[in-house]
């Protein structure tokens, strides 16, 4: 069997360079060499999940990717809970998708997205820990000649209750590894948990405070060159011509390449040399039809969809159109949500060594298996001749679940066989070659009876489907089910929290050429704004308290209601706010969790200040309250950045914003106080990385209305409050 240590960029493989900087060891890559070098001294693998070293260090293997969301620590907690190992000696390592492939996908799905890190692997990881403990305990019992039932384990030590004898895990791991894994692996009752649910510190903080943490951007290998690519800025466009000779003599430049049909790249000794030459490289693009698309033309197409007769149905109860037609009063509004770039702090990159028989990649990815598939295809090799060695991500937010950047990096490396090539995107490339939060509009119409009760609601969404570009296989007869996140009749990915006597939520799919993708919070971001702000409009238009109106629709939705009530109570809803401060509420369910937020804001001379946000989360089981707090705070920065500033506009077929000067994001000084309430009601596993982002914008926008009477319906806010309205 191929040993793990030979094919991963292990700690051992991180060589100290002469300057003290970290180099990535360049030792691999042939399967042959790996098979030969299986070291006799390798610490025993107990099962696929865990290696126990003679000095008691326990190494947990991880298929999910750490990108800041704390999944490494959360998974380790769940594993340690069942394994009863010494927490202070626990660490993690990444497995590669190549190893997983060779072992019948023993580590399950590598996808780390959709706030799934904990949800989708909690059972397999807990069972891996429990099985390890059972095998170790059995091995000790066998050695002592006593029944395993008389032995227990704690902090990596097995004790026989009758005699008081003890053995350390490391002392019996070799025997344990020879046992047949138990078929029946009972898990602890949540009442017995001692590690899950504790606010333990993260396992990976120290290196992030000293500059030692190695990201994809930092990788170095002997003989490595750096490539900086540029794709046609108009999606779907191609390279017509480029004048390599104009820059090939510049300092450090080694190659000037065409990459596929639609990109060029300069390969040089350093990033700066490559970038400088690329900036000077004359390129002519063939932008085709798409070169005529602009934000205005896209907007017109979406407007048409708002009233188009044909639409995919997401949620339907009764006959909303008839109820609205016969209603005593109608309230109607149209909202819009723009393209947004993920803009993780670390721009896209990948380091590749390609030869005609083997392709190895070191890169930050949210999905090792998808990266492997993309790599093999671009490399022209079978998956078994490729592998992906992961490094922690400098942010992901969904962008690193799709591997367009990796495919291009491999197409570059193929033209320089045998040489390690680090392909690095500039921030500018990252901004204009994104996979964007989809663009949509929404027209909402409510019919009210004489007592101002909603008798019918029609919510028509018009705009872009993520699955159509990201995963067409997920469409259901053309319908994109992801479009209706938070608006569904039921289900973990987003059940609506209200009951209307008549309801119609439908989607007129309109797909511009700009590629859309999953973006932290995904379609909840706009769906929550549309519904939660519109309900607020109905409340104000009918002189009802926004909380009371919501409550009147939530009798059948106790979990949604519980988090809403919690934030309302904590913020002091119904009692006077501080002078000049106004409040807003929102709730939503998604990624398996129920969340609500209450915001306090003030607006002075058009300047919005968000003072305080109270957020409540019911994620079923709360694995690490401290991590949840961090995720909630972070989700508000991401969500409020989007609400305040986030817009990518299109001109002549290309994205206009090229860096943080034109794609602004929130800074520390704008950050409100965040109070996190965790209300784990048990019985299910909800996500925490994304859910609270859903309620950030609508809670603030509803507070803005309370303070100014201005209803902001077009995202982002930008300078709308400074304009007269």
């Amino acid at each position: 069997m191929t040993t793990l240590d030979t094919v991963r960029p292990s700690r051992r493989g991180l060589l100290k360079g002469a300057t003290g900087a970290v180099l990535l060891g360049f030792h691999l890559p042939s399967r042959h060499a790996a098979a030969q070098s299986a070291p006799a001294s390798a610490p025993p693998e107990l099962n696929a999940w865990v290696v126990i070293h003679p000095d008691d260090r326990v190494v947990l293997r991880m298929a999910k990717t750490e990108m800041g969301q704390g999944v490494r620590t959360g998974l380790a907690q769940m594993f340690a809970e069942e394994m009863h190992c010494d927490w202070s000696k626990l660490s993690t390592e990444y497995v590669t998708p190549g190893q997983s492939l060779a072992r019948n996908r023993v580590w399950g799905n590598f996808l780390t997205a959709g706030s799934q890190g904990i949800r989708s692997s909690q059972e397999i990881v807990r069972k891996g820990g429990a099985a390890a403990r059972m095998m170790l305990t059995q091995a000790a019992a066998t050695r002592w000649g006593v029944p395993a039932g008389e032995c227990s384990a704690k902090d990596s030590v097995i004790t026989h209750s009758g005699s008081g004898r003890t053995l350390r895990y490391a002392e019996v791991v070799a025997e344990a590894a020879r046992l047949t894994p138990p078929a029946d692996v009972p898990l602890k009752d949540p009442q017995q948990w001692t590690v899950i649910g504790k606010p333990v510190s993260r396992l990976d903080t120290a290196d992030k405070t000293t500059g030692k943490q190695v990201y994809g951007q930092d990788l170095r290998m002997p003989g490595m060159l750096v490539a900086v690519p540029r794709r046609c800025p108009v999606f779907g466009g191609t390279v017509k011509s480029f004048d390599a000779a104009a820059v090939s003599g510049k300092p450090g430049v080694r190659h000037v390449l065409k990459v596929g049909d639609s990109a060029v790249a300069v390969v040089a000794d350093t990033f700066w040399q490559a970038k400088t030459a690329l900036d000077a490289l004359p390129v002519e693009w063939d932008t085709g039809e798409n070169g005529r698309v602009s934000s205005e033309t896209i907007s017109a197409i979406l407007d048409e969809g708002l009233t188009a007769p044909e639409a995919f149905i997401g949620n339907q109860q009764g006959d909303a159109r008839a109820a609205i037609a016969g209603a005593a009063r109608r309230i109607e509004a149209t909202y819009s949500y723009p393209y947004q770039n993920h803009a993780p702090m670390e721009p896209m990159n990948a380091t590749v060594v390609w030869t005609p028989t083997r392709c190895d990649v070191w890169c930050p990815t949210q999905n090792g298996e998808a990266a492997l598939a993309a790599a093999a295809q671009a490399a022209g090799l079978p998956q078994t001749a490729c592998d992906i060695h992961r490094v922690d991500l400098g942010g992901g937010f969904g962008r690193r679940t799709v591997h367009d950047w990796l495919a291009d990096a491999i197409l570059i490396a193929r033209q320089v066989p045998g040489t390690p090539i680090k392909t690095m995107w500039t921030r500018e490339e990252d901004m204009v070659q994104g996979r964007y939060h989809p663009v949509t509009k929404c027209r909402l119409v409510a019919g009210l009876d004489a007592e101002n009760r909603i008798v019918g609601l029609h919510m028509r969404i018009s705009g872009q489907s993520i699955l159509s570009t990201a995963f067409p296989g997920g469409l259901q007869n053309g319908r994109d089910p992801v479009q209706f996140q938070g608006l569904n009749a039921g289900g973990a990915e987003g059940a609506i929290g209200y009951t209307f006597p008549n309801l119609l939520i439908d989607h007129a799919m309109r797909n511009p050429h700009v590629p859309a993708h999953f973006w932290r919070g995904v379609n909840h971001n706009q769906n929550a704004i549309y519904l939660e702000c519109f309900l607020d409009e109905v409340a104000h238009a009918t002189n009802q308290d926004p909380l009371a109106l919501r409550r009147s629709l939530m009798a059948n939705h106790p979990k949604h209601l519980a988090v809403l009530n919690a934030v309302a109570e904590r913020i002091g809803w119904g009692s006077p706010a501080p002078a000049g401060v106004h409040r807003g509420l929102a709730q939503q369910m998604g990624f398996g969790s129920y969340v609500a937020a209450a915001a306090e804001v003030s607006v002075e001379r058009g300047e919005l200040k968000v003072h305080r946000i109270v957020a409540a989360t019911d994620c079923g089981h709360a694995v690490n309250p401290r991590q949840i707090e961090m995720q909630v705070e972070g989700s508000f920065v991401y969500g409020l950045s989007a609400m305040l500033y986030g817009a990518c506009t299109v001109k002549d077929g290309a994205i206009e914003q090229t860096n943080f000067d034109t794609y602004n994001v929130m800074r520390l000084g704008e950050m409100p106080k965040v109070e996190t309430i965790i209300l784990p009601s048990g019985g299910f596993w909800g996500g925490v990385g994304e859910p609270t982002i859903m309620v950030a914008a609508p809670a603030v926008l509803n507070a803005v209305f309370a303070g100014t009477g201005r209803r902001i319906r077009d995202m982002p806010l930008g300078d709308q409050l400074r304009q007269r309205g």
Partner: protein
Amino acid sequence: MATLNINGRSVQVDADPETPLLWAIREHIGLTGTKYGCGIAQCGACTVHLDGVAVRSCALPLSAVAEDQKILTIEGLSPDGTHPLQVAWRALDVPQCGFCQSGMIMAAAALLAEKPRPTDEDINEAITNICRCGTYNRVRAGIRQAALGGTAG
């Protein structure tokens, strides 16, 4: 050939004088704790100290750095990761992905060196670095904790 004084060492850098200090630090000297986030002085991921003052090294050409100016990077902030900010950062679990954190810590260290007891307003003004993971409130708490610890810089 430029001579730089970096983390107390004098090093020769064979790079075009227009090369930004960031890339000399990362690619020529090999210290990769200082990050590239935007290249146009917007995000602060590349923050280092130049004679004790926080600067965005992506926008500073080598030609603008004199031989005797002291450059300090995250790797040189403390010999063993025990600068009060680093200690506070670990106690509070400030980093998420961590990519912005070298720059955050260097910006905060320059602030504390100048104002050992910064007000909230001081912090707002000094820390304009971008963190996409959203660690801002913990960054603030970390600076406060380090300031209470007494020593700085």
